[in-house]
């Protein structure tokens, strides 16, 4: 079953190559793209099923023994995220029919989309630190291409900021990988787990850990390093911003969780308090930033930052409960952010603007969609029985278990403040009557394109289902958290695999 791992990378890469070379019309490229995403979804589901029943799957690339070669590995945490990423990517590839014009498709939209998802999946399933860096680069360069595709002025302006800060994070990541290699002589993450405690100078390990925190913190848009996100996400076509808002920052969070549970578990004493402070400040900065905005997409961009704070709390509290809350919150966060950006796209299409002052009266025009949007924002805020509620309950439970009452108070307070900008979208765009004269009235449309509606309905259903039936996901999150905090099974899957297969011939 280990071929599933390599297949989940090959499928998006092959689709990328096919859509790049396909001579047909732009629509047919879209259909190929959807077919590729559906295949990826199926593979990821099989992968999740196998990991769930048989435990961690690993595969040594090229048959080289584990600490030497590159390992692909999927534990439950990775497998869950691969499934969620694949489904969001499928939703985006359907949604792209509604707002990605022929020019952009011919410019390679689907190719870059698939390379982006290959990078995301690769980052989730790699077991090698340098390989993680390479997948980050694959993801980054595809995201750059998606960012400037179309090349309007505003996109270039946003892209300059996004590219600059992300390149800095790349360099920091590369340097810290070099340093950890110098300290331990290995780059295999499972091997690092065993060797890092053996390093003589543990203060150097702390320094490298902080470098990793900075590098992944930029990618994840953690507090002082988040400015690139609200500067660029709203300049993009909705399909692209849904993809970015859903997935890109969460890969940074994944990398943070993976490195700090697997490579630097000994750094908890010093790092945890930093993580907690950063998490709380990130949440505050996110919700307060959202309150100052009037563009729906920028409000949502700041909410992406706030949700990163919730995920970091799970890592910072450092208990099984907290970690499973973080896993649950990641699944919920990826889906809800992609959904809300797509809904913002529909609002923009219906109302002719993304600005709250120019919107209004949507409830009268489209009551059904309005109710759907209301449910989506209630999901984000965390009204029972929607999925955000379970995520927050889990975090609060974890806070209670470790008696961090300040954290609980902050989570509750911030959830309350989250309410304000979101309900403002509701009351301004949907509830108040349409403004008498709008400068963009001519661009209004009355219909929702089916290509935009299908992914919105699909993601809403998925979230609604998680909300009504949270037990299976909570259980899966619990088990992922246990294996994250006690990674013996993960290490055995990587290293014992190698000793069994001393002869490379056994592999094939």
């Amino acid at each position, binding site marked *: 079953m280990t071929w599933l791992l390599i297949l989940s990378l090959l499928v998006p890469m092959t689709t990328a190559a096919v859509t790049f070379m396909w001579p047909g019309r732009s629509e047919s490229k879209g259909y190929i793209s959807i077919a590729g995403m559906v295949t990826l979804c199926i593979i990821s589901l099989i992968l999740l099923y196998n990991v769930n029943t048989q435990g961690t799957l690993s595969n040594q690339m090229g048959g080289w023994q584990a600490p030497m070669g590159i390992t692909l590995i999927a534990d439950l945490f990775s497998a869950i995220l691969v499934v969620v990423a694949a489904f969001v990517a499928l939703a985006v590839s359907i949604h792209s029919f509604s707002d990605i014009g022929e020019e952009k498709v011919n410019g390679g939209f689907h190719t870059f989309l698939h390379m982006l998802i290959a990078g995301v999946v690769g980052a989730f399933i790699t077991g090698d630190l*340098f390989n993680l860096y*390479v997948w980050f*680069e694959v993801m*980054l*360069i595809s995201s*750059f291409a998606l960012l*400037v595709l*179309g*090349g*309007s*002025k*505003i*996109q*270039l*302006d*946003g*892209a*300059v*900021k996004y*590219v*600059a*800060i992300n*390149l*800095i994070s*790349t*360099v920091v990541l*590369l*340097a810290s*990988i*070099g*340093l950890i*290699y*110098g*300290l331990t002589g290995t780059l295999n993450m499972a091997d690092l787990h065993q060797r890092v405690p053996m390093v003589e100078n543990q203060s150097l390990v702390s320094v490298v850990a902080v470098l990793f925190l900075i590098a992944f913190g930029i990618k994840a848009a953690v507090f002082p390093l*988040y*400015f*690139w996100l*609200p*500067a*660029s996400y*709203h*300049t993009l*076509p909705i399909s692209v911003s849904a993809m970015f808002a859903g997935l890109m920052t969460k890969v940074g969070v994944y990398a943070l969780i993976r490195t700090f549970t697997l490579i630097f578990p000994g750094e908890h004493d010093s790092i945890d308090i930093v993580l907690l402070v950063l998490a709380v400040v990130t949440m505050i900065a996110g919700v307060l*930033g959202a309150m*100052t*905005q*009037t*563009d729906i997409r*920028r409000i949502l961009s700041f909410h992406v930052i706030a949700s990163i704070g919730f995920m970091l709390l799970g890592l910072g509290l450092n208990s099984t409960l907290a970690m499973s809350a973080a896993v649950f919150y990641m699944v919920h966060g990826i889906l809800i952010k992609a959904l809300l950006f797509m809904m913002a796209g529909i609002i923009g*299409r219906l109302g*002719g*603007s*993304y*600005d*709250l*002052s*120019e919107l209004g009266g949507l409830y009268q025009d489209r009551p059904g969609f309005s109710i759907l949007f209301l449910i989506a924002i209630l999901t984000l805020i965390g009204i029972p029985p929607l999925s955000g509620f379970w995520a927050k309950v889990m975090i609060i439970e974890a806070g209670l278990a470790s008696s961090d009452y300040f954290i609980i108070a902050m989570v509750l307070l911030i959830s309350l403040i989250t309410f304000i900008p979101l309900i403002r979208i509701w009351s301004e765009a949907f509830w108040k009557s349409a403004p008498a004269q709008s*400068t*963009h009235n001519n*661009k209004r449309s009355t219909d929702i394109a089916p290509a935009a509606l299908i992914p919105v309905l699909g993601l809403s259903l998925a979230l609604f289902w998680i909300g009504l039936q949270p037990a299976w996901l909570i259980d899966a999150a619990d088990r992922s958290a246990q294996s994250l905090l006690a990674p013996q099974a993960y290490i055995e899957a990587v290293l014992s695999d190698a000793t069994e297969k001393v002869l490379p011939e056994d592999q094939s």
Partner: protein
Amino acid sequence: MEILMSVLIGVLMSVSVWLMLSRNLVKFLFGLVLISNVANLIIFTVGGLTVGAPPLIVDGGSEVYANSLPQALVLTAIVIGFGLVSFTLILALKAYQALGTVDVDEMLLAEQPAGHQAVNENAATEESAPATTTTPDSDAAGKSPGTPL
């Protein structure tokens, strides 16, 4: 040798940080070229320097040989870095052509108060700022984030 390399890394790092702190996008770009080479030098140095030996094991195995892994890593990083720098170079050129400036402080198009941007993404030709859209909180929105460089 290690001392020499660390001094070199330190000097290059400070130069590149100084360049990257500039508001000028072109200077930033040069800083980027330097700093990615700094990262490569770090990998190369901490991987262990072996003077005058190839990264090959000669038959018999008693010869001195250099660690080949850092070299492989650096090679990968150089290729990736080259791609990223070329992309950024073109992006800077395009941004200069489109926005008419290389000063990132003047690149405020994406961070104007909302309302100046229409749904149509080619709405970069803003200008028409009707009095109705300048809400009281719009100056806060325009000023808050961004220009991290």
